[in-house]
């Protein structure tokens, strides 16, 4: 597949999109892990939810 004289513009566009999407996915995944860890730590310190369910309970 030849992209002609403007290859750098086309490739940079797709790379920029891939980078931004990867950063978004990474940020959301890391944020989730960090929040779950924080909830576990709070639960281990003896604080529980008013409903009595586990802090890390997803249901």
């Amino acid at each position, binding site marked *: 597949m030849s992209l002609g004289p403007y290859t750098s513009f086309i490739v940079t*566009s797709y790379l920029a*999109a891939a980078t931004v999407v990867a950063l978004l996915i990474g940020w959301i*995944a890391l944020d989730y892990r960090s929040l779950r860890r924080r909830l576990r730590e709070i639960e281990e310190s003896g*604080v529980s939810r008013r409903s009595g369910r586990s802090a890390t309970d997803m249901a």
Partner: protein
Amino acid sequence: MTLIDLTNPSRFLSLTARLLPYLVAGTAILFAIGLYLSATAPDDYQQGATVKIMFIHVPNAWLSMFVWAVMSASALGTLVWRHPLADVAAKAAAPIGASFTFLALVTGSLWGRPMWGTYWEWDARLTSVLILFLMYLGLMTLWRAVEDPARAARAAAVLTLVGAINLPIIKFSVDWWNTLHQPASVFRMGGPTLDRAFLIPLLVMALAFTLLFVTLHVAAMRNEILRRRVRSLQMMQARAASNDMSAAATASQPA
């Protein structure tokens, strides 16, 4: 499970746990098809291979406005019904919308340089999209600056609804003012002017990016619900510590 049940944060978390794997798989499949169709699409007779930039620029430009529209609907939910998930939805959508707007600006510039001879022009379409990007950043800053989530939610909802005025300006800027940007060629009266060879990859990529938004939005909403759970538990923890200290102080006082 009825629709009203989904507005309960705990039920929503349970639904996301079941839904996310399917959303991730659907997004990956659509991107695989979309990227294949984009790679094999023919060159345009005028633009050559740079037409391939359209397959990522246009979906990101559409989504930059769509996400703000979603946030505006959520803002109504916050102001009118004061529903807790409405602000969660708006706050979770903002960074994703900002990223799509950033990509629309960057890929637009990279498409503009070979086609128009310039990366940037202060015309109505480009400037109004830049304003949209700055509004996303402003909203994200507002949410971070106000500590009380309820107060931040109301202020952000008002700002979101005021910012929605920019959406028709972006959409019709190419008709109202003289601009380098081409007029609408897909969603227009009389049907698309785009050839099927370009229209089909464009629509598949648009669908892929839209499903990506739904997937990321659901995951970010789940995170935001957990963040609020952390905050309320930390407040309970602080209250318990404060009560313990008061009890200890009372016990140590001489009778």
